[in-house]
Structures are given as C-alpha cells and as structure tokens.
C-alpha cells in the first residue's frame, strides 16, 4: 500500500481523487459526444452500439442545412434568447437592487424573490398553461376586463401567442438565477465608491449609471451567457407547454433534436441538429470560459 502522506507520493493522491470524476465524465459525456458525432455522420434511424458500422455519409448535414426546419429552429431559438435573456436581466437586476436595500425582513424577501428557481419546470409550465388557458385562464380574463384585447388570446393555437406563452414561463423560471448572481455582484461593490460619489455630489441615477452599472457589467455578462445557454438547452418547458408547435413556432434547436430522434426516430438527423447546437453553445460559452478559466486554477 502506498503511503499517500509521504511527500513523494502526495501528487499521486491528487490524481486518485480526480479519477472518479474523470471516469464518470469520460463514460457519460466524452464517449457519448464522440458517439453522437459518429451517429450524425451515419444514416441511422435508431442508434445502437455494437452494430455493423454504417457507411459514413453527409446526408444528415445536407438535410440540416437544406431543410427549412433547422433554420426556423435557429430563428426561434435566437428570438427566445433575446426576449428571455433581456427581460430576465431587467427583472433580475431590479429585484436584486430591491432586496439589496436595508430593511427588516430583507432575508425573507431574498428567499421569496428567488423562489421560482426551486419550482420544477414541469410544475411551472403547468401552472402557466392554466393561467394562459384560452377560455378560462386568468391572463385572458385580465386582458379582457382591462380592455387591452377584445377577444381572448389563443395561447395554445396562435403561433405568436404560443411563443409569448413560452417566454412567460421561461422568464418566470429564469430571472431568479439572475437575481441571485446579480445580488452577489451588487454586494461586492465597495461602499467607498458610492460614498466618494456622494461626496462628489452625484445623485441616485448618476450613482447608478457611473458606479453600479460599470461594476456590474462583468457579472451581467456572465449571467447573460449562462441564461443564453439555458435557453438553448431547455426542453421541459416547451415540450410540456406547446410540444414545439403550433407549426413549429416554438421549436428551438433543442426541441428539434428531440423531435427528430425520439418522435420521428431519425436519430442521424437528430444527432446532426444536436451537434450543431453543441457547436453554437461552445462558441457562445467561450466568453464565459475565457473569463472563468483564470479562476479555476
């Protein structure tokens, strides 16, 4: 038995500790990724391992770039990222600033503000589905009685409204993480900067513009990237709410991947969409990784 406390063997201990994580990720992440790339390059309906290798083909990618579905899914994803990301930042920032103030019950307020994070996606989706129900939903009742619309909005069947419905759910589920991280960011701004500004005569809005915003930019950046990646990846909300419809109006790349693979059983094509999504996510997260890589070691 090697004595790992001996100075000569200390480093080996480190590698040993790392081993389980490395093995787990190699088997469940690295190997599968390689497998998916190979699946995307084969004409595969249902993926199996250990079968005779199919001939390599670029058919799936031809379909990928040729079919309107992929481009449409890309467009939907992009729209969703913009709306959900933008509004989540605003709500997250506003709530973070609110609970950053000093008042009694502040801790409870922080708890409640971030509560939607703990609600499972399926539950959140189901609640909003009911609130957005065409005939009996609360939202339509509000819109009608306030005179904003004349007819109830068909959140289920109208493509534009369905997209809005997905946005509602995602923003409700998405802003808490923003709020938590932005709050941490706000708290790390040194009080002296605000004091110096006050001494210099800066008012509330000026202090916000010249001190809060610049200090928060890095955190906002990181959180935006994280939210973007989440929107790219999310499956449960859209699948349960609209199944990607109507007419593919809420089909993101992620939904498309699932649809192709497990509803139409064209896994080769599904894998191609997935690979495309992964590449896009990799490019987007380069921003995050660059900044965070310094902190890991």
């Amino acid at each position, binding site marked *: 038995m090697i*004595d790992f*406390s*001996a100075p000569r063997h200390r480093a080996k201990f480190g590698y040993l500790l790392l081993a389980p994580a490395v093995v787990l990720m190699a088997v469940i992440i690295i190997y599968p990724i390689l497998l998916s790339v190979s699946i995307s390059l084969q004409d595969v309906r249902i993926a199996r391992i250990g079968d005779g290798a199919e001939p390599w083909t670029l058919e799936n990618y031809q379909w990928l770039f040729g079919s309107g579905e992929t481009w449409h899914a890309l467009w939907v994803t992009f729209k969703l990222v913009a709306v959900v990301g933008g509004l989540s930042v605003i709500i997250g920032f506003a709530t973070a600033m609110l609970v950053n103030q000093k008042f009694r019950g502040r801790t409870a307020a922080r708890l409640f503000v971030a509560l939607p994070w703990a609600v499972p996606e399926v539950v959140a989706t189901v609640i909003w589905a009911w609130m957005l129900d065409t005939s009996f939903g609360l939202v339509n009742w509000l819109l009608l009685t306030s005179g904003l619309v004349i007819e109830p909005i068909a959140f289920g069947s109208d493509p534009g409204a369905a997209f809005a419905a997905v946005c509602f759910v995602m923003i409700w589920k998405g802003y808490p993480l923003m709020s938590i991280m932005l709050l941490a960011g706000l708290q790390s701004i040194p009080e002296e900067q605000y004091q110096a500004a006050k001494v210099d005569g800066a008012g509330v809005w000026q202090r916000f513009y010249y001190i809060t915003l610049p200090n928060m930019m890095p955190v906002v950046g990181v959180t935006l990237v994280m939210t973007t990646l989440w929107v790219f990846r999310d499956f449960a909300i859209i699948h349960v709410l609209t199944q990607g419809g109507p007419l593919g109006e809420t089909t993101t790349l992620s939904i498309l991947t699932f649809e192709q693979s497990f509803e139409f059983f064209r896994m080769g094509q599904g894998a191609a969409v997935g690979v495309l999504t992964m590449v896009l996510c990799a490019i987007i997260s380069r921003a995050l990784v660059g900044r965070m890589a310094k902190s890991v070691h």
Partner: protein
Amino acid sequence: MATVRFDHIKKSYGAVEAIRDFNLDIEDGEFCVFVGPSGCGKSTALKMLAGLEATSGGSISIGGRDVTELGPGKRDIAMVFQNYALYPHMSVRKNIGFGLKMHGMAAREINAKVEEAARVLELTPYLDRKPRALSGGQRQRVALGRAIVREPKAFLMDEPLSNLDAKLRVQTRSEIVKLQKRLGVTTIYVTHDQTEALTMADKIVVMKGGVIQQVGSAEELFHAPNNIFVAGFIGSPGMNFFHGTVEPGADGPVTRFGDAEIALPERCAAMAGRDMIFGIRPEHLRVSDTGPAVGLTLVENLGTEKILHFHTPAQNTLELDSTALAGEEERDAQTMLIRVIDDRRYSDSEQLNLSFPVDKIHVFDPDTNEVVG
C-alpha cells in the same frame, strides 16, 4: 536521542533551485532558529523537515532515523503554524488530543495527557471551548499544547509569533524558551525577525537565497559574522558599512575616513592599496576628542539611549548595488548611526569627533563579500 540532520538537501521547482546543498546538524535538545529575509528558503526547509514538501535530493534524519521518504505523521514530530491551524469544529480538548487519537492511544490516557498539557499552559478553564471563542494568545497556547502533548522527537515552529501584537510577542517569546528548556525537546524555529533569533536560539542558521550564510550562536554571529549579509542582517540597528583604500600608516594600516585617518586591524597590512569594505556597529562607534569630524543630521532621543545620524563622507559611501546588500530597501548607505548611552545632550548639526575602536572594525573583501582574516 533526537538529533536532526540535513544531508545535502536540495529543492527545485522545475528549473528553479530554491534550496541548494543544505547541510546542517542539530543536537539533541537544541533550540535552533532558521532566520532570513522572506524568500530565503527557511520555511521550505522546515516543510521538508516536516514531510509536507518533497525533497529534490539529499536526506533528512531525525533521531538517527532516515525519514526522507516518510509522511509527516510518521516522523514523530509536532508542528506549530503561523496561523495556529486549530481545528475550528473541535473543542480545545479535542484539538490537543487529536494527534494522540490518531496514534491510537486509549481515551483515558489521552484525557490525562491533555489535562496535564492544559495545566502547564494555563488552558484548563478553556478546555471545552471552541477556537473561535479564544483570543490570539490563547489560540497560540492551544497550538503549543497540541504539540507538546505528543512528546515528539522534535518541535517545528513556523513563525508562530508573527500574528501576535508586539507586547504579547515579547512575553510569549520567553515562555516558549522556558518551556523548551523544561521539556528538553529539540526545536527548529523559523522566523524573519532577527531579534527573536538572537534572544531565543542556541544555534542560529542565517539563510539567504536558499543558501546557508552562517551557522552559530548569537554571540558568534554578532561579533564574528562571516560575510556582509550576516553582518548587516544581525543586530538592530544594523551595522554601518563604508569603504576605503588601505594605506600603510606610521603605526600600521590606516584608511581615510572623512577628513582624518583611522587605524585598521593589523591583518589589513596585507591588503595595502586595495579598496576594502569596512563595517562597524553603531554601538561600537565612540564619541571622542580626536578622530574624523562629522556633523549630526538627526538625533533620535530615547532617554539615556540616543541614536545619532550623520552623513557618510562622500568618498567612503558604499555603492550598495555592487554588494551583497543590494536590494535591501531599508539600508541607507549615505547615513551612518551611532548608539550612545549617556546623560549628555546632543543636538542637530552638532559637530562631533568619532573614534573607531580597531578591534571592532570588520573587514570585508568587496569581491567575495566575505570577511577577511
């Protein structure tokens, strides 16, 4: 017998050699202090002794046993850290007894030993508290308790007093020395404070840049430093340095200092014509009636003790960059100090004559930075 021996110890980080050819013998029961500026390798040497760092070459023996390949827990040593490293989730009692527990001692025995150690260190009322409920000084004693209860072959201490305030530091210093004398355990103590080294150690190891500069008692290092670095490092305020050309004089070698000549030790006769570096401690310079005249620039009045500042004569001022003292920011080669203890009053810009007792002048070779003779 708990002797400690470093045999040709080396430590490299990649291409960088942090410690080269470190050789040292420490006697049983000795209080040995490693001292030097930060980055000199003293902590690294201690960590290698503890087994917390691997050696790149050479061997370490404790009590005659080669421990180089053994883990820290098997070397029969105890260590006190700079920030005490007390286990925050355990009571003082458990902290002190942890090492004994790890070595498989029975609970009842552990308890007895812990109580005894607590008694010695006056920690008995705190045994059931957690570290965060203790003051700095108390925490330090718990750290000591954790060490002494193991009855190891050697104590290793890594700057244990640095986190204490000045007054507590002085008080704890003497307590540690008394404790060590009483227990008779070989102790290796690391510090950057030369005062601690001088007051506590039986044997002092001065280090710089990973190399041992000199090993000796406080007396030896103070009166007979081997090189300029040791001469300047030991003693507070530090030794004055100046340079001058050795000239043959009527009664022996002399050199010019300011407007007059001062006598040099006899051995300098062999260096006639050479420019040498000289050192003399502020406490050895004498105010007299004859000798070079200087004008005081500052008088620091501490009561009967006074520190007098004056400008080094231009031709004697040392170019620091070319010596082993390069890089020490606190050293001002253009000012020299005299330390006097008397009832006389001194004032700024007063003119004084100095005498340089010939047996107190240290002579250094400017090329090797080592002492001559």
